[in-house]
């Protein structure tokens, strides 16, 4: 029993030993060289196929096998190593050949096998080679047709005969002779499929054809021209000058000049004796101009140049922007021309002139300034005119209007650059606070991913022209955006009350447009809870910063009321901004 157990354990352990040895490196696979020859015999024109597919039966990406051949077993390998099982070979001499093939793998294990092939004499037609020099030239050229590299596997080259078809019409232009080279000159331009037929002494023959291009081009003509147009437009004259063209080495040759202005095949001028040509090109953009210079034999050379034809000059687009539209006799009014553009002239090369006193004359002190500051000496409405002139002396004007009111407050400008177009607001200093004299108009579209978030502006009755005068209307959520630019904020109820106490203690009239407070408050109406626009020209509500409850400053000129009121956040009201001094 004990011996039986021992035997069992020993067998188990031996099994483990055998199993554990499986991770030893695999032995390289054997290589066996085997190939077949198809056909087994043939002639000197037979292409024998050597098929070693059996050799590659054990080959794969991890165990590649390569083979090579020694076609006559002379010890020199004639075929380089290949992974292809199929190789073709032709024996050019009759006889009995012993073929050797070697197969090897990447572990340098090799095997060699042999086969015997009987090759009889065969007969094949000549193998034709044809060279034409040049293969493209003009009608005055002697073309050289050279078939001297033609060979025949069985016959000497000097036993071969040749005949020629130069124009490719299928009719042989010469009889057979032993000269493999022939010269020919064509009498017309065109493309010709020229051919040669080569015959061996057994009357076996081969034909080879090649294309010859015969043209009227002359490489000796140098065609060139200049286009003196500069910044020429569709109404200007281009001056073409081909006097730089010449016949190389023969300055006495008479040349004529033809012009195809748009390279459309329509020649605007043909065979001019003068190299000069003037023309208005009415096609706008980049156009191609072809010059053809022709010699006295009718041969020519072309050249093409691109020129740019600019559109007829357009006047500048003048833009004037008033920074502060409201002010008093002491106010410094700011104007700029940013946004002015011109299609043909750089904005830096435009000429800027300003007329600020409505006398029709430009003020020389402001010449070529893109922004100006000025004062006005009289009350009322003032028209300011900007004239912009481009490099073609075309000009345009733009105007803007500002108002000068009676008042003595310090005034200024608030700049809001948060939108694509910078907005300006007139400001007035009352007490220790700067106030905007106009209602906010800002509207911010959402950016990618909602950054920045939208600031939604409502327009009275949906009419944006009213917004230009009365400003926008905003619900309280949008007012919290913040609606005022950096450094500015909503006024508190206490601050508004203090301003009213200071400037309009006896009624709201001084607060209105033209009033002595210079707050220039307009009755812009509001949008109620039903989103209805009401109260234009009679009522205004201006948001205040106070919360819990929400307040607005309410003025109704019909009812004669002027006070802070508690309101709902969903109303659409006007906004003024303040800044501490």
């Amino acid at each position, binding site marked *: 029993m004990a011996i039986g*157990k021992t035997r069992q354990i020993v067998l188990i*352990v031996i099994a483990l030993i055998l199993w554990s040895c499986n991770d030893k490196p695999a032995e390289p696979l054997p290589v066996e060289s085997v190939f077949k020859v198809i056909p087994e015999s043939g002639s000197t024109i037979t292409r024998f196929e050597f098929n070693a597919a059996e050799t590659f039966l054990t080959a794969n990406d991890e165990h*590649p096998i390569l083979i090579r051949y020694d076609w006559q077993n002379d010890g020199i390998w004639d075929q380089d190593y*290949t992974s292809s099982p199929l190789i073709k070979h032709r024996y050019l001499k009759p006889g009995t050949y012993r073929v050797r093939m070697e197969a090897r793998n990447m572990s340098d294990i090799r095997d060699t096998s042999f086969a015997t092939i009987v090759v009889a004499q065969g007969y094949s037609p000549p193998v034709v080679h044809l060279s034409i020099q040049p293969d493209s030239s003009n009608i005055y050229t002697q073309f050289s047709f050279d078939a001297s590299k033609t060979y025949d596997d069985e016959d000497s080259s000097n036993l071969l005969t040749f005949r020629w078809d130069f124009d490719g019409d299928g009719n042989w232009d010469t009889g057979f002779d032993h000269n493999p080279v022939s010269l020919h000159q064509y009498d017309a331009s065109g493309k010709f499929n020229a051919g040669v037929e080569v015959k061996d002494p057994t009357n076996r023959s081969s034909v080879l054809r090649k294309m010859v291009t015969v043209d009227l081009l002359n490489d000796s003509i140098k065609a060139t021209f200049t286009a003196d147009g500069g910044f020429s437009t569709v109404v200007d004259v281009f001056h073409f000058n081909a006097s730089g063209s010449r016949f190389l080495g023969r300055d006495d040759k008479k040349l004529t000049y033809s012009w195809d202005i748009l390279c459309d095949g329509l020649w605007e001028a043909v065979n001019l004796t003068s190299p000069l040509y003037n023309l208005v090109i009415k096609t706008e953009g980049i156009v191609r101009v072809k010059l053809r210079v022709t010699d006295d034999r009718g041969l020519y050379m072309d050249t093409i140049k691109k020129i740019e034809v600019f559109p007829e000059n357009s006047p500048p687009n003048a833009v004037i922007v008033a920074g502060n539209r409201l002010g008093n006799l002491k106010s410094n009014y700011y104007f700029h021309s940013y946004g002015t553009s011109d299609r043909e002239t*750089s904005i830096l090369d435009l000429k800027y002139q300003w007329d600020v006193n409505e006398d029709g004359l430009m003020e020389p002190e402001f010449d070529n300034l893109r922004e100006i500051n000025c004062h006005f000496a009289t009350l009322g409405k003032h028209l300011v005119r900007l004239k912009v002139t481009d490099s073609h002396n075309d000009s345009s004007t733009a105007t803007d209007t500002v108002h000068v009111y009676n008042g003595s407050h310090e005034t200024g400008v608030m700049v809001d650059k948060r939108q694509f177009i910078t907005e300006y607001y007139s400001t007035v200093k009352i007490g220790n606070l700067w106030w905007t004299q106009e209602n906010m108009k800002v509207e911010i579209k959402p*950016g*990618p991913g909602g950054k920045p978030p939208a600031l939604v502006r409502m327009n009275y009755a949906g009419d944006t022209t009213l917004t230009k005068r009365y400003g926008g209307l905003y619900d309280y959520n949008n007012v919290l955006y913040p609606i005022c630019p950096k450094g500015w904020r909503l006024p508190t109820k206490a601050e508004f009350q203090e301003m009213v106490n200071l400037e309009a203690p006896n009624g709201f009239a001084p607060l209105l447009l033209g009033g002595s407070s210079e707050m220039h408050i307009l009755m812009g109406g509001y949008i109620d809870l039903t989103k209805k626009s009401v109260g234009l020209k009679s009522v205004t509500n201006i948001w205040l910063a106070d919360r819990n409850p929400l307040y607005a400053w309410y003025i109704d000129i019909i009812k004669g009321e002027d006070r802070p009121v508690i309101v709902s956040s969903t109303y659409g009201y006007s906004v003024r901004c303040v800044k501490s001094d």
Partner: protein
Amino acid sequence: MIMRNLILICIAMFALSCDTEIHVSDESGPVPVVYCILNQDDTIQRLLLSKSYLSINADIPPSSADSLLITGKVNVTIETVENSQVTEVNRFFPTGVSKDSGFFPNDRQWIYQGNFKIKEKATYRLIIEIKNWDYVAYSSFQSLGSFSLVDPAYPVGRKIHLLDDHNPLVHWTRSENAAIYQVGFRLHFKEIRSEGIMDKTLNILFATTFRRDDPGAFYSYTVNSNQFYKKLAELIPSDSSLLRRYSGTDVFVVAGSESVGFYLNSLQGQDPFQFFDYKNIFNGQGLFGSLLTAETKDFQFDDQSIDSLAYGSFTKQLNFLDSDGHRKN
């Protein structure tokens, strides 16, 4: 007692029998080092060939630089295999000793050159026979399938926005047999000097991404705008005597075969004290693979990006004109 002895003997045999044989190398001579990355976008193909002494039993190589050049006749052949048939055999011929600093810089290697177009999704086999050594090295790989850029894409005139607020996303379709991709921008610009205007082109390459068998029809890479401008500033020398004007941008993606992917991937974060040993050459060292490019040409940056090129913190010293064609100093 007998049983215990038998067990001990067997365990000892078991332990001894499980020794793994380690073949350090039984070669006593040098081995060829081959680098051949076929360019599927071109017809001129190159192969770099030198030799190396890897075996501890190898002869100590001579000290001269030429010692790494293989002398004597060497046959370099690349076979194209389609449907298990060798359909094309191309011989490479030596054109000189490498002097450039290209993909595998080394001035001690032969450059072999062949002239043929690489077919898509075909097997390529490389056979190098070194006559003097009676030695054969071999490799094979699958060429890449065509692929295309999906985004950015035409219509012509669509502009690229490269600013802090937006990093453009490049999408492309998967290339069969590819394992690695690299996105690049080819920037065209003009250098305006007093003596004339020169057209210039610059490739800006971003990080490689190893994507072998990721699911999905498309792969993507986000181009970091700041990184683009920073790379540009590193590649273009600042020169206050000239002005530069942006002309256009081509966007391209280069795909690499599996062997190239494994090679480049293994270089990522490589321990400097760890020898790099990826190869796919039988009886040699080196790499055999291919690259293929998909590109879309003639994009334009939008005006804001051109202005950023002109006045941005990374590139302002490069003197690019802004979108108005001006330079405000």
